[in-house]
């Protein structure tokens, strides 16, 4: 789900068949190239930050703090992608993109940032690493696609790495939410109880549990969708290559 936000069906389709598509104009293309380059760079910074922190400390523990700020900045920046779809310069579904980005932003801010006690968990490193590798590949894929110079290696990586990164990210996310549960229950974080003058209540603890449960139907759907895309994109290319 949130782990490798590999883009949506339409984006994948555009590199499968020679379809007639009214792509973005020249100005929009230039903007998108800059956007994708900046995002690639940002996630590279996070990757480098993780490696350096690991080498400096000598352990996997507590690496979150070394990349906390760029992670928040660049993951939140991905909200722009919803705008891109809404405006039409990217041919993806607003709903699908919105859902994917929001789930990432939710995990970054409403779980990891909000529940300080989970920040030391190893599960955080698990999903951050998965996201980092995924995003570097994804944004460079978009960059090269926009410039019409997509190296096969990048395309292959985008449609292959998810096989490992997606389950890895999902595991990290679920473990992190699970770790946050006791603290949320104890402090009543983001919860509203009755009675109050707006006659409303919200239990964040229950909400988090429901979020975890929702992974059960959603994750397989997204995972198998990516597998189908992989078959379409990579096998298609092989056909051309054998001709």
């Amino acid at each position, binding site marked *: 789900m949130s782990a490798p936000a590999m883009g949506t069906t339409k984006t994948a389709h555009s590199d499968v068949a020679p379809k007639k598509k009214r792509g973005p104009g020249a100005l929009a293309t230039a903007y998108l190239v800059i956007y994708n380059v900046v995002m690639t760079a940002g996630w590279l910074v996070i990757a480098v930050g993780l490696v350096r922190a690991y080498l400096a400390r000598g352990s996997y523990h507590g690496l979150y703090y070394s990349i906390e700020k760029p992670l928040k900045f660049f993951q939140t920046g991905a909200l722009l992608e919803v705008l891109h779809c809404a405006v039409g310069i990217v041919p993806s579904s607003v709903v699908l993109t919105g859902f994917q980005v929001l789930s990432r932003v939710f995990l970054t801010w409403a779980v990891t940032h909000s529940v300080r006690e989970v920040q030391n968990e190893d599960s955080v490193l698990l999903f951050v690493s998965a996201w980092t590798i995924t995003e570097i590949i994804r944004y460079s894929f978009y960059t090269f696609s926009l410039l019409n110079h997509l190296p096969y290696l990048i395309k292959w990586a985008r449609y292959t790495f998810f096989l490992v990164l997606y389950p890895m990210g999902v595991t990290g996310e679920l473990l992190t939410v699970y770790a946050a549960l006791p603290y949320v229950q104890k402090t009543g974080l983001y919860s509203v109880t*009755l*009675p109050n*003058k*707006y006659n409303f209540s919200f239990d964040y603890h229950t909400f988090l549990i429901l979020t975890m449960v929702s992974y059960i139907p959603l994750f397989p759907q997204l995972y198998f969708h990516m597998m189908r895309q992989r078959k379409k994109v990579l096998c298609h290319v092989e056909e051309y290559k054998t001709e």
Partner: protein
Amino acid sequence: MKLNGAFWPSSKTLCLAQTHHLSSPREHTLSQAVVFFEVEILDAKTKDKLCFLDKVRPLHKYYPQWYAARQSIRLDPKGKSLKDEDVLQHLPVGTTATFYFRDLGAQISWVTVFLTEYGGPLLLYLMFYFRVPFIYAPKYDFTTSKHWVVHLACMCHSFHYLKRLLETLFVHRFSHGTMPLRNIFKNCTYYWGFAAWMAYYINHPLYTPPTIYGEQQVRIALIIFLFCQVGNFSIHIALRNLRPPGSKTRKIPYPTKNPFTWIFLLVSCPNYTYELGSWFGFTLMTQCLPVAFFTAVGFIQMTVWAKGKHRSYLKEFRDYPPLRSPILPFVL
């Protein structure tokens, strides 16, 4: 147009070529078995001639699962469906006609859907009102709220859905007989879900009645609610009277002698306007955030519908009154 032609079941979108030899220029609607027609069936994708029939029978005689309501017949594979009343002779086809068939999926009647989606909220709310066991703490089972506004809210909510049920049975004249089956699950989830959510808080033992302006607020809210209920009903009657029984004609609605219909001067879909007003009144009456959410979501959906209806009015009628807005006078 319900096709009296055979088709090939292997592809969902089929291509039929139809040649007709008429011995006399009589009008033939395709709902009558037409012995004169000869039908040639082509595959929609490969255009191979699959078979040739010289005696045509109703489509559902060959494939009973594709009853009339599921059939969509069009002249263009991506175009609009032809209507039941369409007559072959008046269609823009020559001596060889080509039709495309699409299966609309399992259908369910509008009346059935409406009765189910409105019956649910009526019953569910009452279950919460009477504090049926397993909803609230056991010590509250079968107790009643001490706040008079809670009783009032129950009466209003029940009245609203009862009105809707009766209108479905006796007032509305539907353009389409059916809708896709999956809609009933979608619609019922929406109505039943929101009804339960609202009812839970309003009938909760810890419910807090309106505090901002207290009794005055509830009184004004009730007036707004009742006014809009009468208004909504008036519009439904006016719309019903536009259409003679059994017909599917469409006309521009105009204000009648009933003052509640004078809003037609400013709005295309005043039934939605009044509906919004009713729920706004209910929100004010109960001062309950879930009710506000329900009102907001309903408003968004009704605005989408109103804009669509307004657009189709403008397209269909050259002389459509220019002053009208879709749902909110001058604004939206």
